[in-house]
């Protein structure tokens, strides 16, 4: 009762050489057994941990009885992208952390069951809910990432006509360009996008809002606009040598690998430098993803350099564990000082300094400080900078009356309302880089607020 069902995974020594999905998913028997562990609490605390308010005990009860069809239908009332969430949500800090079983032993594997159901449904073909009568209102959604897709799906289910504008040539935002195939297969993202389209949502690709059309122009054609433009602007360290050949932002490295499929070069045309000794700077999920991609591209040694300790790492525990199993090296309490080249602009080393932790800073985490005299060099032919992103200024700069914070994030109320009438925003564009599910939660809230706004119009 206290033990969870074990998730079948690809062997670390096999998977480090391929891009196939790491976690293989529960069998039907495992799913039923796992769901039976749910205590069906009268006041379920798990639901409070879910940013999109999935009715967790209800769907778990269905799974325990083997009623998978009704279980997935129940999830989809609140969550349009369960196959994605079941894979990339940090459940251990959300629903599963709130599960009462976690106090005694291990919580119910809610995320893995969500994934199981979504995969079960995908194999059989998703059912489209009956849509209400069209309201005649039209809404533009800018960006087809988790926030935009959720807002679009919810608005469509409310009877509004929705058009999504996506800058890239594929829909999905960070789910397509950022999260690697081995963690979130792109076929799954595509089928979730197809589901949203089947709800009647139109997705216009290759459309960079702020360039091909401004938000102000969209407002003349649409009754409301939702901005789910994400946090796509990469941060750099601003140290010497960052423009050497072989030094990538994580955004570029992952976009080449995931969106452009450069791991299949030359079958796909976009090249990538396949380093033998790769250093990734950063401690978040994006750093783990970059390191694990570098390994799969054929690196002999991949090292993560992070300026704080393992406890302070923002990456999910599961991702750190998977990275370690695959042989990624961790150099913690280590910070880059400069990047060194060979005189012909190619990177050869990264110079780092040891750090030690002092008092907690405003983020509550211990502030790292350099230990003088500990400078040392690590050999590297590829360096990936994965220290975070901020919102792209393209839309705010071209939108009159849309206020942004000093960090470049769009200022929005709890319900997504921005400083501009009829314009709502949510996800990383508002919070700075965060999680897929928090973006989805914001998309959901904004959809409700937009619906209310349209009714009053």
């Amino acid at each position, binding site marked *: 009762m206290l033990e969870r069902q074990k998730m079948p995974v690809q062997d670390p020594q096999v998977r480090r050489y391929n891009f196939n999905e790491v976690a293989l998913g529960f069998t039907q028997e495992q799913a039923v057994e796992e769901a039976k562990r749910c205590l069906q609490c009268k006041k379920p605390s798990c639901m409070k941990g879910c940013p999109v308010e999935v009715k967790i005990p209800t769907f778990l009860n269905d799974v325990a009885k083997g009623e998978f069809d009704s279980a997935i239908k129940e999830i989809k009332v609140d969550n349009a992208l369960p196959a994605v969430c079941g894979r990339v949500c940090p459940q251990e800090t959300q629903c599963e952390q709130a599960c009462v079983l976690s106090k005694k032993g291990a919580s119910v594997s809610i995320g893995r069951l969500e994934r199981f159901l979504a995969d079960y449904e995908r194999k059989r073909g998703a059912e489209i809910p009956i849509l209400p009568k069209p309201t005649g209102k039209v809404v533009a959604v800018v960006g087809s990432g988790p926030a935009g897709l959720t807002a679009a799906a919810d608005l469509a289910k409310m009877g509004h006509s929705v058009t999504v504008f996506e800058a890239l040539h594929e829909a999905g935002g960070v789910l397509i360009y950022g999260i690697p195939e081995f963690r979130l297969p792109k076929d799954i993202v595509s089928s979730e996008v197809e589901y949203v389209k089947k709800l009647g949502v139109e997705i216009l690709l290759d459309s960079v809002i702020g360039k091909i059309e401004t938000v102000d122009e969209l407002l003349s054609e649409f009754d409301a606009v939702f901005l789910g433009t994400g946090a*796509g602007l990469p941060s750099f360290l601003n140290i010497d040598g960052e*423009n050497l*050949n072989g030094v990538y932002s994580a*955004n570029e490295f992952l976009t080449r690998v995931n969106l452009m499929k450069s791991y299949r070069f*030359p079958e796909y*045309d976009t*090249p990538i430098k396949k380093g033998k000794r790769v250093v990734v700077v950063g401690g978040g999920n994006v750093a783990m993803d970059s390191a694990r991609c570098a390994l799969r591209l054929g690196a002999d040694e991949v090292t993560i350099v992070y300026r704080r300790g393992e406890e302070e790492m923002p990456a999910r525990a599961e991702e750190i564990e998977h990275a370690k199993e695959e042989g990624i090296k961790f150099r913690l309490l280590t910070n880059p000082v400069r990047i060194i080249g060979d005189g012909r602009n190619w990177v050869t080393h990264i110079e780092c300094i040891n750090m030690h932790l002092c008092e907690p800073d405003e983020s509550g985490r211990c502030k790292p400080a350099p230990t003088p005299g500990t400078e040392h060099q690590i050999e590297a032919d590829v360096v990936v900078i994965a220290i975070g992103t901020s919102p792209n*200024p393209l839309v705010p700069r071209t939108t009159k009356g849309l206020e942004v914070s000093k960090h470049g994030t769009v200022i929005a109320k709890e319900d997504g309302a921005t400083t501009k009438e009829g314009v709502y925003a949510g996800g990383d564009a508002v919070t700075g880089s965060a999680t897929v599910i928090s973006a989805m939660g914001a998309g959901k809230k904004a959809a409700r607020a937009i619906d209310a706004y349209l009714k009053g119009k």
Partner: protein
Amino acid sequence: MPFEILKKQELIPTIHLMDISAHRIARRAQPGQFVILRTGETGERIPLTIADFDRENGTITMIFQVVGKTTMQLASLSAGDELRDFIGPLGNPALIENEGTVLMVGGGVGVAPVFPQARAFKEAGNKVLSIIGARSASLLLWEDRMREVSDELYITTDDGTKGHHGFVTDIVKKLLEGGTKIDRVVAIGPPVMMRSVAGVTRPFNVKTIVSLNSIMVDGTGMCGACRVLVGNETKFACVDGPEFDAHLVDFTLLMNRLAMYQPEEKLAAEKYKCEREGCTC
């Protein structure tokens, strides 16, 4: 969203013109901006500067030189074919004002993006002096179009088959040394040429603008592949440019970064040629 090719023409050996039907982009395009395109599902995203646009007919004109796999593929297409993706208009428009006298310098395929700017400067009331250069007379691009929008047109060829025997910089230097009052220089062409023009105009303190053709992926500020050093500050050519003050640009870094994927580009081009010509290597 496929984009139809309305016209495709080989202007001179290895340099092609293509008109694409793209109403929404044509409506917005300005001189100095670029597009990113993809030929097909497995294709890469490549940036090309907009050579002309027709708002009424909704077309964008591009001029490209065959240098690698993607441009070989483009060259193999004809009117009626489609491009898989066509994204724009990207980058900042060129700043076109009445400066007085502007000197437009186009080298090789760089004449194409110079043309709409020369025309715009002319329309803005400037006296337009232009220099177009190529390796040889047969490789000169758009001489007629450039003549139409220029008050004076100079031609240079490396081999002396037409116009001045030498480089575009020779004329730039001659004009400046001869005391011709020039308020702004716009130079677009190979990085070596742009660097040389910057070197010539620097001692005369004439504002010189170049358009940088860095390697790009998304073209919207997302990846930073196109990093350039301008006045010792890192800039993204896609969103901060593509035009910059030539006197502040680190051209050595630009050229080094442009060479980043040379082995891969060679491999892709050879593989493509093999497949097309049916060899079994």
